[in-house]
């Protein structure tokens, strides 16, 4: 392929991106021509598609928190700490790690000084960890509710439906009409059982959006919501975090320089800019341009 060929391709990619903006601009211009001063937020919201990555993360966190809190309630105060240690050990060795290489994850809990009452704060997980937990949720349920078979069975059935929902929702392709119908059927089954088991305590905004058909509306409209998720930014966040951890020690403390002289932010910014240059094809264009001018790259 010669240079022009790839340059045309880059120009077309950029044009496609701009055309999507134009589509939105045309809608707004139409509102303006119709003499509308203000539009109800709902009309904007219909253009603002929910991020399924965030949805998956938040629902995952909520489900795990709700399930573990319910399990903790079944234990008396003296044995609650044992339960937390055991479930933490199980998650470290069976879900996030293995017997030979357990993970370092800790289940945080709070103990009231006077009463000794133990409570679980809302669990926060990165999306890959939340996904891991949801995929192995049966292990958690079996462990936490081994003496409450009926409850465990019903909960396990609800979670299986949710796993199937996620498979459809995060598919990297456009869904067919039948798949979207089956998506809502699965949600309805999950939602009914989940509410039955946990009531209003198990509800979040995103679970409400699933149950009331808002997500199905967007899915019918756009067919593939993965396209609109913020997966790329999340991945970049993870990359930055790894970069900082691999290249720094205690945030530069005791690094041998005077206070204020050393900063990690410049190297992080340089790394992010380099990453974005390649992702947006600007770096390709830069080198192609140099080659066109006769420089060897």
């Amino acid at each position, binding site marked *: 392929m010669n240079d022009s060929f790839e340059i*045309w391709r880059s120009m077309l990619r950029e044009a496609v991106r701009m055309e999507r903006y134009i589509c939105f601009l045309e809608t707004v211009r139409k509102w303006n021509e119709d003499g509308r001063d203000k*539009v109800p937020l709902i009309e904007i919201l219909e253009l603002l598609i929910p991020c399924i990555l965030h949805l998956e993360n938040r629902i995952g966190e909520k489900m795990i928190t709700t399930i573990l809190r319910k399990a903790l309630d079944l234990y008396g105060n003296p044995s609650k700490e044992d339960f937390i240690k055991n479930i933490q050990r199980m998650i470290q060795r069976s879900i996030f790690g293995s017997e030979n290489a357990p993970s370092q994850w800790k289940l945080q809990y709070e103990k009231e000084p006077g009463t000794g009452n133990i409570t679980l704060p809302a669990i926060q997980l990165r999306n890959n960890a939340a996904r891991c937990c949801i995929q192995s949720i049966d292990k958690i349920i079996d462990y936490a509710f081994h003496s409450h078979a009926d409850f465990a069975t019903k909960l396990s059935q609800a979670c299986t439906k949710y796993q199937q929902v996620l498979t459809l929702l995060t598919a990297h392709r456009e869904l067919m009409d039948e798949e979207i119908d089956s998506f809502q059927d699965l949600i309805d089954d999950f939602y009914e059982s989940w509410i039955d088991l946990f009531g209003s305590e198990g509800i979040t905004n995103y679970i409400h959006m699933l149950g009331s058909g808002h997500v199905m509306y967007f899915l019918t409209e756009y067919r*593939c919501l993965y396209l609109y998720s913020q997966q790329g930014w999340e991945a970049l966040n993870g990359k930055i975090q790894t970069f900082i951890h691999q290249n720094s020690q205690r945030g530069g403390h005791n690094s041998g320089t005077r206070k204020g002289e050393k900063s990690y932010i410049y190297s992080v910014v340089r790394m992010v800019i380099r990453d974005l240059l390649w992702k947006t094809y600007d770096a390709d264009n830069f080198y192609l341009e140099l080659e066109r001018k006769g420089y060897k790259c």
Partner: protein
Amino acid sequence: MHVHTLLQDLESQLGLYYERHGKRYHDIISRSRLLTNHMQGNKEGDELHIDYEVPPFDDEKKNNTRTLLLVSVLSEGLGLT
């Protein structure tokens, strides 16, 4: 939500792109044979897709792809380099 503010914001983001090309989104999309859905499963193997990878040493396919891209560039009003 104020329409005027939203309009100003979008127009400033788009710059002169809209005026320069003077084409409506639907016109461009309906006329173009070029496929641009980056979620298409077989995009690297689909000769009509923007991400099509031409097999090495296949001059015929290379020329077809070159023509398709050229026609698309012209119909978008992007000018040639």
